[in-house]
């Protein structure tokens, strides 16, 4: 249990801290990673802006979250790209 537990916090979707367990999970994950939820939101916007300068992204579908286990915290960013096939002009 101790070694393989992951705690995942999703931002970018509506945060589901509807119950105490979810709130606690979120609070602990952010504390451990050293990133507050507010900073994560700012980071998300900046990442979207930076990536959008080079590739075509689906802004609304971007997700950013924290993934953790006992050893480390990770920032996980999922950026769906628009398929170039639909955009090619012939």
């Amino acid at each position, binding site marked *: *249990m101790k070694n393989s537990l992951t705690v995942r916090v999703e931002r970018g979707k509506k945060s589901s801290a*509807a119950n*105490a*367990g979810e709130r*606690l*999970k979120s609070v602990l994950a952010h*504390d451990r990673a050293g990133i507050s939820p507010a900073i994560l939101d700012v980071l998300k916007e900046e990442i979207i802006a930076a990536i959008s300068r080079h590739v075509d992204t689906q802004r609304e579908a971007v997700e950013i979250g924290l993934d953790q286990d006992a050893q480390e915290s990770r920032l996980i960013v999922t950026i769906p790209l628009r398929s170039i096939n639909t955009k090619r002009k012939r």
Partner: protein
Amino acid sequence: MAATVVTITSGKGGVGKSTTTANVGVALAARGKRVLCVDGDIGLRNLDVIMGLENQVVYDLVDVVEGRCPLKQALIQDRRLPELYLIPAAQARNKTAVAPSDMVRLCNELRPEFDWILIDSSAGIERGFRIAIAPADRVLIVTNPEIPAVRDAGRVAGLIEAIDKGPAQLILNRVKPDMGKRGDGLNISDVLSLLSIDLIGLVPEDEHIVHSSNRGLPVALNGRSQAGEAFRNIARRLQGETVPLMKLDNQRGFARRLARLVGSGARVLSPQRAARARRDS
């Protein structure tokens, strides 16, 4: 006899560190161990009153550190349990009066005289915590099943690892029997799975506690108190015994569910078995 020094800390205030220190001390002494409780909360003396020894306080920890009395003179012996001793905190000073190195020195001097030295830490993570943690061989983190307390426990556990005093073990105190049943409350499995700290005991909410501190009679001496039984179990687990978790009221199957989280059948791991389990996994 070379004492194991155990620091009881929490981060959050008011979760039951002093009550735990007093009761685990009493439980160990009742089993014939020579126990010293040290009140590390300088300026906010509490352990004496919880243990019912407040009328015997003459010298305190700061008197010893500043050389106003020999160490042995500050030791208060509990007349009900002659194996149990207390060094009270100073009441008129604050945490600047003692340095972490003083505590280490003190404990080293006392180790040959005792089987267990239990240090009641102050709340917080500043100097009071650093004083209490400096001499620790083992650390127990006390928390309550509510978000602010658990969050602080998580923070403290991280700090303890960072200074190489880990891993700590967790005491979940003031557990109510019907927690989490109404759907959006915090339940015990939430707390344990999120904190990833080995559990050494669960202590139920118990109205005997407030009576016991009013009377100066720790509940570990009270056969009718569930909290008292829980503290006695913690003392046994500290000594390496494997003790099944108590069944709390209204918690059919709870102990089994909990034990799956803790990882070893229907029992809370003793520290040796926990270490082996970690090695093997």
